[in-house]
């Protein structure tokens, strides 16, 4: 009747023991894998950083492509796939935002406030519907934050103000490295920040430069602030008449778009980006790792910053 009992019970015991050993091995394997993936993600990032020089050189050498950044992005992804099959990159034009560092200008060996650009920033504040009562104070605090001197503007604040508040960072007294430094001046609430933050950036230059070939409905608020004489109709003309490979010269822009050249400040207009943000996305064993680099499209010292978080 139950003649197989000895065999079955023996087999059952072996199965149970094997199962325990299997579970133990599995935990060892998964712990090891987790540590390995973390280590290899860093190694990959370092590999990519070393590859950035080639990437920048490619963008500079084929700079005509940069007039249409989505074409450049596709081209780069094709090149990258052969070396890093699990990596994809996306490019963001950083020559279409309002650079906070343009609120100062070099004078001899120091930076002083640039009131002319301050007025353009005020245009952006108006466009962004920021409370008019804080415009002067906000701009003054940014001047004080960026300029080299220790004398506060009439409505500004130098270090003594920040020292008196235990939770604030002092003025950098140098150009901003990241737009988030505007938060340190303690003037904008979350609603105001939401309205203006995406239009801002901090680039290592005090010149205003806007890449007209990347003009779109997301950044036209900045464009309208820089060229207050323009209207929405002009913006539409610039966007609709843009050739596939972008405008090439100022004359080309005026001829093709048909807008009045006196409405534009020629020195502010560029036709390919000077700064781009490269967002890297890599897939390692099903886990996604990302980081981004803000790069200047110049040979040599091209890194503005690298960051692993947004």
């Amino acid at each position, binding site marked *: *009747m*139950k003649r197989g*009992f*000895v065999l079955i*019970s*023996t087999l059952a*015991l*072996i199965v149970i*023991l094997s199962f*325990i*050993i299997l579970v*133990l091995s599995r*935990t*060892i394997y998964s*712990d*090891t894998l987790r*540590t390995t993936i*973390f*280590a290899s993600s*860093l190694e990959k*990032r*370092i590999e990519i*950083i*070393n590859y950035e020089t080639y990437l920048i050189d490619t963008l500079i050498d084929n700079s005509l492509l940069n007039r249409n950044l989505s074409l450049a992005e596709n081209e780069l992804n094709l090149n990258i796939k052969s070396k890093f099959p699990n990596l994809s990159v996306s490019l963001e034009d950083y020559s279409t935002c309002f650079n906070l560092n343009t609120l100062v200008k070099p004078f001899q060996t120091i930076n002083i406030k640039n009131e002319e650009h301050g007025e353009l920033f005020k245009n952006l504040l108006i466009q962004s519907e920021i409370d008019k009562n804080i415009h002067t104070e906000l701009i003054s605090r940014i001047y004080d934050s960026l300029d080299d001197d220790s004398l506060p503007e009439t409505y500004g604040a130098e*270090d003594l103000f*920040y*020292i008196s508040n*235990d*939770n*604030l*960072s*002092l*003025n*950098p*007294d*140098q150009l901003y*490295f*990241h737009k*988030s*430094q*505007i*938060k*340190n001046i*303690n003037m904008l*609430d*979350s609603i105001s*920040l939401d309205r203006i933050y995406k239009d801002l950036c901090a680039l290592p230059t005090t010149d205003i430069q806007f890449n007209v070939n990347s003009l779109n409905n997301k950044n036209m608020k900045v464009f309208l602030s820089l060229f207050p004489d323009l209207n929405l109709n002009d913006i539409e003309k610039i966007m609709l008449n843009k050739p596939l490979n972008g405008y090439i010269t100022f004359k080309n822009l005026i001829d093709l778009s048909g807008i009045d050249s006196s409405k534009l400040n020629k020195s502010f207009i560029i036709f390919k980006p000077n700064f781009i943000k490269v967002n890297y996305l890599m897939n390692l064993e099903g886990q996604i790792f990302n980081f981004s680099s803000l790069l200047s499209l110049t040979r040599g*010292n091209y*890194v503005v*910053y*690298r*960051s*692993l*978080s*947004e």
Partner: protein
Amino acid sequence: MKSGFTLLEVLIALLAAALISIMSFDFLANTIFLKERIDDSIANDSKHSKAIHLMRLDMIQAIPFKLKDQNYNSLNNVFLGSNEDRILTFVSLSSSDTSITNSKLRRIIYRIKDKNLIRTSTLANNENVVLSEEILLSNIDNFRISFGDSLDDMTDIYPGLNIAENKSFPQFVVLNYEINERKFSQIMGFFR
């Protein structure tokens, strides 16, 4: 009708189970012991590699931000390194950009104190506001750090004592130390 098992069958089954248990006990005990050792080793290695990776990531995200000291005076330096208790000081974009009141910039300070490697993050330009502090590694012996732009020419202090202004990072940072009598050597860089 005969039903159930005979005493002999039960005794044979018990005997077989006992024999297998005795034979497999040693193997199972070894496996459990091995797992504990591997877990310990992974935890230690993981803690160690996490500490070193964190340091590397901070360096990758470093920016040449001129520091002010605790008395709010400008130091005209973007990076301070020494073999004393405070080994590294610089500003990095190591925080997420979610705060309403603080920027993404953080001053990162690495210290060696009581055989511990400690990482502290503060506001970029106000060291008195400490935002986080963590012991990354313990039981460190014979710690030594050196800095330089060439591996053949490294110094204990960066920038040198007579340099009043410095806007750059050293090309290499070399760490040598021992943990539980195991020797380690790490070469790091800022990639700028």
